[in-house]
């Protein structure tokens, strides 16, 4: 249970970063923290008390495995997160070139 609470706290830290920070890079870091907390949560769902690695090999056919499906989901989500963050960073760099700053308060071409 304590792990789930920690996970939630981590999510909130990330959300804080996204909502409060004014620096583009820090916002991206906030999103990354949120993502890791969600991945952590998915891993926790699949955990079985006393389970072993879900690899079938000789002599371990009847062992108690942790659920491999959330792990597959996490791997996929990591790949997606990689693509998203790479794109975000490149947009942030482009913005930095246009404005000469990472501060979100200085970007005001969209209003209304």
């Amino acid at each position, binding site marked *: 249970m304590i792990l789930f609470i920690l996970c939630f706290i981590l999510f909130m830290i990330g959300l804080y970063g996204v909502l409060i920070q004014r620096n583009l890079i820090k916002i991206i870091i906030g999103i990354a923290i949120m993502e890791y907390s969600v991945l952590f949560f998915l891993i926790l*769902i699949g955990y079985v008390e006393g389970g072993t690695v879900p690899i079938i090999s000789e002599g371990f056919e009847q062992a108690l495995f942790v659920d491999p*499906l959330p792990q597959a989901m996490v791997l996929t989500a990591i790949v*997606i997160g990689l693509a998203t963050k790479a794109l*975000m960073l490149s*947009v942030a760099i482009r913005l930095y070139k246009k404005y000469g700053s990472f501060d979100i308060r200085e970007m005001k071409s*969209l209003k*209304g």
Partner: protein
Amino acid sequence: MIVLYIIVPLSAAFLTVIFGKWLPTLGKYLLNAALLFLTGLTLYLIIAGPEALIYRVGGFADVADVPIAIFLVIDGFTKILLLIVSLVGLLVAFYSVSYTKQYTGEEKFYALFSLMLAGMYGVIIAGDIFNLYVFLEIASIASYALVSFGIEKHQLEATFKYQVLGGVSSLIILTGIGFLYWGTGTLNLADIATQLPDHNIYNLFVSVLLIGGFGLKAAMFPFHSWLPDAHSSAPSPISAMLSGVLIKAVGIYVIIRLFFNVFALNYQIAVAITVLGTMSMIIGVLLAVGQWDFKRLLAYHSISQMGYVVLGVGIGMLLLTTGKDEKIAALAISGGLFHLINHSLFKGLLFLNAGSVEYRTGTRDLRKMGGLAKKMPVTAGSSFVASMSISGIPPFNGFFSKVIIIIAAVQAGFYWLALFAVLVSVITLASFTKVLKYGFSGKIHSQHEKIKEVPFSMSFSMTLLAVLCLVTSLLILPGVRQVFLTPAVDVLIETVQYSGTVVGL
């Protein structure tokens, strides 16, 4: 056959990138050909009959009644979405043939476009929720890149906003999927419906997470702030795709599918969806009235019009949960779906019009236009059709769908909702009268004396969309409706039938 919807756009995307260096124009023709093929395929599937098609990727059979394969499902509701995506996608792709000549690296545009289409098709036909998430992310990432395609200041800024909110919504959706897997032990949509525990708080919690996530993707009322920026800053064909198709495929479609077929119909959720729909309908149009930027105005109207769709579906859902007349529910849902089709046509057309005006005059500010009707008759004519259609003037399609929704609301006894729908329609009309007055009639600006009509591919797409705006009015006829709309409505009305047909339980 179903997998073609994923194979064809994906291979178009990759072939475009592979040969892009040597044949930069290949992407255009490849994408258009792919979409033409898929449109034909979809029409064939619709004509062929309302049966659901189910496909197991990898050919894994069910083990002890547990579906372990990845499912791809096409049923009546899916077919409508597939038709919209293919048709609007095809016309927008044809429009882009001329439009993208102003950009460098055209082939990347078409590769990303194909990727976005593949993502949307995947979301629509995916039969399990995690693959739905993966395809949703593919579509989203491609759309992020496309919004910033021109790398101008406002585009990058809009992209960043869109990316941050899109990223947060994806994470909320992923959390929801995690909880769903925790509670049911499966990811298959149809299997979830049967395995869902009879625990009200749990269901409500997961529903709230998923409504929040997909509502953010669909830009429903409290989460709409990214949409006007992203949709107005993107290159115009992409605006048409985002507004016309993407928010429906990844937002509205998933919400409707989840809350009709997967979760048991729930009164609180139905109320929440109806309220959200009404609110976004009203707020969207109120924000749109004061806009002078052509594309921004259209973007706010997208929020408002999506409100109509959600309102229609929500009324149907409310009636089904309270166990009132099923016929009125069917009417409301069919009104909502009809408006979904119509909106993608006329909003796509309006964004293409805005793109044409921008292509020739270089401005999106309505105050700097004026008198364009004489110089650009096709653009002006088609935008007249689209404006009348969006504000619900007969005999254009928007009128019929709005009337169906309003009639259903009145019959169900929601007089206030009917009144709101009528009022919003009137304000929409006012707003578009402004567009027509400032944009196309009146005296021409001195610097726009020399402009010409847009190139053939652009004007052809716009004309075809304008014609479609008229033709889709025919969906009101019972014979036509039987083929297109009724299968979709049946899928939604028979809520538990979905898991029965898919898993066979």
